[in-house]
């Protein structure tokens, strides 16, 4: 088992599944669905195997030797006279404490989204083919360590997502789908241009001693590898690192989505089918913050330190603005969508603290937001399937009609608010403690805490409008949860409670990496400052 390429397996299994699926006649809908379920279950098992074999002591981040499950092969290597057309790309996968939680999250969410997709009845084959392609793209982003590979996976998700929203979505699906596509492509062109500029600024030392331009992210994180004249090299006095950082950050921020680039999210969420909302909120949004942690922070630690106040500021705006918008919503799903924006703001704030506590909070919040919001969207899906409406004011008194459903909703709502004993509390507490500990952003942190208050406001108010009060007559026939819905909600509920009571399970996993990141950030000024002089 030692040499089994488990990361390739977990990444490309869905793609393989898709290829097989294309050969199944489209009438056999059950086989198609089952195949997808098998693929995603295998992914969960693979994720557990990875977790089992994961060494908690190794940090990763910028140290190539402490990444785990590494697979590194030469993929493209064009050599020749001078360096014209020379390009070297490695097929380089590996994980550390920051990617492990997200690999796990992706596996779980994909599995649950498959269950949630069971009710899809329009072009089933196309749906699941796109779904599996999306799955490969998501997983690939979290395991790729070569920037070129990372970018390919990043872009690979766009098209399936466009179709999944555009074909199987709600009434305004076309608008939402194209908006999502244009926004994210707009963001990724910045990633592309910075990627090429980074390529020309760093040279990796090969085993034979020669130095070549590289897309290897870990090589880019080593200040020793910068060329003297590269436009993003700190050695070059006229470097464009600040501009490149902002461009890269914007590219990732669109995915988070960070204010003011957030407007695609409510549209996409409202129009997307439930399962896709779950994936969107559960995994896709995390790619933005993961990208910042994986690419922006370790490659540009010097600039990160300079701009950290602004990152925190935008985190704060996300928290407050998202919460205020959520408070104003009359549509259940839209409210959850805006609450996502608010909660992703916490991740930004936590990262901006640059200390171990804050970054732990940020990564943990990414995982928790993934599970909790997935639950919330499933809950919206349950009621929408039955009532065909999502208006918060259309309901009332459902707690008597659907008590178990109400129970799960309460759990998810409380976890989202951050009630102690549930996972959301731990990550929120870590984020605020970490951010408060960093003097520069203390004021922003204090203002951000208002977000919790607002969060409690919109969540509890929604609770009241949907579940309390008198039951409307037309809802008297609503059934409580079915077996399939239990199968989706119970695992997530267990995770939420388990990590609330015993957060160390997750914290230990990321501990070494977070410390490595904090150390890198702390030392950035000295290391990069000394380069120029």
């Amino acid at each position, binding site marked *: 088992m030692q040499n089994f390429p488990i990361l390739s397996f977990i990444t490309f299994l869905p793609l393989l599944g898709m290829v097989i699926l294309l050969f199944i006649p489209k009438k056999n809908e059950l086989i198609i669905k089952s195949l997808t379920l098998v693929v995603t279950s295998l992914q969960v098992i693979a994720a557990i195997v990875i977790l089992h074999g994961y060494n908690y002591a190794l940090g990763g981040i910028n140290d190539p030797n402490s990444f785990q499950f590494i697979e590194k092969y030469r*993929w*493209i*290597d*064009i050599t*020749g006279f*001078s360096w*014209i*057309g020379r*390009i070297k790309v490695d097929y380089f996968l590996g994980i550390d404490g920051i990617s492990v939680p997200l690999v796990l999250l992706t596996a779980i969410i994909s599995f649950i989204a498959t269950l949630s997709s069971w009710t899809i009845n329009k*072009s089933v084959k196309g749906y699941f083919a796109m779904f599996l392609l999306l799955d490969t793209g998501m997983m690939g982003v979290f395991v790729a360590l070569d920037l070129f590979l990372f*970018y*390919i996976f990043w*872009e*690979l998700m*766009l*098209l399936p997502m*466009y*179709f999944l929203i*555009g*074909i199987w979505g709600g009434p305004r*699906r*076309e608008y939402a*789908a*194209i908006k999502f*596509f*244009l926004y994210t*492509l*707009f963001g990724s*062109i910045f990633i*592309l*241009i910075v990627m*090429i*500029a980074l*390529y*020309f600024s760093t040279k990796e030392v090969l085993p034979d001693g020669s130095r070549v331009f590289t897309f290897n992210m870990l090589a880019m994180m080593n200040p020793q590898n910068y060329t003297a004249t590269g*436009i993003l090299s700190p050695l070059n006095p006229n470097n*464009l690192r600040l501009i490149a950082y902002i461009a890269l950050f914007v590219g990732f921020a669109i995915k988070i989505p960070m204010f003011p680039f957030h407007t695609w999210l409510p549209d996409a969420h409202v129009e997307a089918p439930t399962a896709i909302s779950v994936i969107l909120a559960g995994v896709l949004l995390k790619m933005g913050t993961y990208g910042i942690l994986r690419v922006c922070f370790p490659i540009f630690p010097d600039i990160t330190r300079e701009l950290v106040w602004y990152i925190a500021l935008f985190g704060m705006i996300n928290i407050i603005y998202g919460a205020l918008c959520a408070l104003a919503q009359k549509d259940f799903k839209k409210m959850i969508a805006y609450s996502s924006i608010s909660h992703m703001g916490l991740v930004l704030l936590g990262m901006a603290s640059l200390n171990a506590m804050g970054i732990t909070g940020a990564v943990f919040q990414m995982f928790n937001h993934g599970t909790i919001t997935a639950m919330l969207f499933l809950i919206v899906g349950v009621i929408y399937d039955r009532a065909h409406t999502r208006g918060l004011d259309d309901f009332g008194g459902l707690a008597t009609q659907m008590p178990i459903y109400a129970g799960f909703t309460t759990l998810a709502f409380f976890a989202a608010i951050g009630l102690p004993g549930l996972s959301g509390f731990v990550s929120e507490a870590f984020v605020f403690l970490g951010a408060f500990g960093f003097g520069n952003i203390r004021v922003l942190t204090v203002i951000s805490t208002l977000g919790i208050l607002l969060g409690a406001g919109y969540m509890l108010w929604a609770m009241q409008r949907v579940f309390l009060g008198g039951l409307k007559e037309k809802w008297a026939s609503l059934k409580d949860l079915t077996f399939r819905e239990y199968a989706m909600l119970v695992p997530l509920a267990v995770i939420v409670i388990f990590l609330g009571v015993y957060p160390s399970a997750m914290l230990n996993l990321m501990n070494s990496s977070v410390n490595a990141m904090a150390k890198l950030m702390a030392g950035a000024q000295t290391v990069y400052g000394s380069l120029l002089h």
Partner: protein
Amino acid sequence: MNTNSLNYLVNSLYLIKPELAISITLVLLVLVDLIFIKNKKFLPYVSLAGLVVAGYFIIEQFSTNTFAFATNNSAGMLIVDPFGNFFKLLIVFASIALVFFSLSSKEIKESFERHGEYYTLIFGMILGMMIMVSAADLIVIYVALELVSLSSYVLAGITRQSLRNSEASLKYVIYGGISSGIMLFGISIMYGITGSTNLYEINSLIQAPQIQSLTFVLAGILIFVGIGYKISAAPFHFWTPDVYEGAPLPITAYLSIASKAAGFALLIRFIKITFMQSVDAEGFWHLLGIIDWKTFIIIISILTMTLGNFAALWQSNMKRLLAYSSIAHAGYLLLGLAVMSNEGITAILIYFIVYALMNLGAFYVVMLIANKIGSEELDDYKGLGYSSPFLGASLGIFLVSLTGLPPTAGFIGKLYIFIALVDAKMIAVAVIALLNTVVSLYYYIKVLKHLYLDKSQKEVPAFSASLGSLVMVVALVAPVLIFGVYFTPLVDLAKHSITLLGF
């Protein structure tokens, strides 16, 4: 004439074997057409055989790097070098595709009788383009350009079926006539100043003492106009949408690739040879400062791609949409030239291979659909993705590749252009080009929206194309996907083809 120069002439004939093969095929086609009056089936096979032979000769002498038909010791009329051979191969490839396209096109098969003329004219065009990409003399360039133009004017209107067909032909003639006139004017001025029509001689004549004359600048620009019209660069692109829409689909596809490739080869050769001062160790060109080609081409290319992309947004006819898209792609390609480095030329060559594959593919699928539903209007594409899943998916892949998203070959093409730009520190230009890509996504995805997202009002007949056509589609889809993830062979080929004779 002494024996030496006679020997030289004979040796030169060996160097133009591909051109000879094409010429002989042309004559054969006329004969076959005359002998088998009733049976036109042989024509495409004779054409294919001729093309394969020509292709073989090109590969055989791929790395040759010399003059043919030298007028004196320093320079000749034609150049045989890897750069030219690359484009000749590309032209032969596109021509083979064209023959297959014509075989499965309903428009070509049913709407007119004179297939002999059709194939003969195509070979006239091929011959013209082959000379165009290897010409070293302004007169040869002009003659080749006219040979290509005259054949394509007729081909654009050959079916004479509809008004738009004749309109295409007429517009093409008028625009072509004017721009070749302008070009000829430029050539005459250049001859008047330097006393030579050979690019290499002109280059050495203007080196020392360096020429500084406004008239010479004018001459350079006027010649650019003639070439700019061939590659449909703005503002000389106005004929493109109308001609592309009106011409029969196989011819449209062919014009958008072969004719553009020949134009680009000519442009690169013209600028690089005539104005070259030196190439530095990193492959950057240092041109003579008479004309600021770099700024000029940057402006033209930004204009071209922006205009192409924005105009394409409003199109509802597939052919017109692809016409504007091909204008936009000419803009991206010009950026590779604007870098003024060997790296930029590598990028152009890579882009051309990719562009040929995906553009041929897109036109081919559009043609297969037009064969069945008799329309190229986007509104008639509604729901087609469901009624013919394979064609829909293939068209989707070609369009995604044209947008330049990974993991398709289109991404690699764009990537290399941007790599060249960033390497030359032309970041602002790269950003503009990338923003253009985002704009282009909107109209490419609009086609996918019609294919998959929209439901048709009327019943869409389920259909699939013949087995042969499907094989052809697969043959074009497969490399688009494979080169998207493994592009080493692509880059290797391009890298070996950037050698221009002399530099």
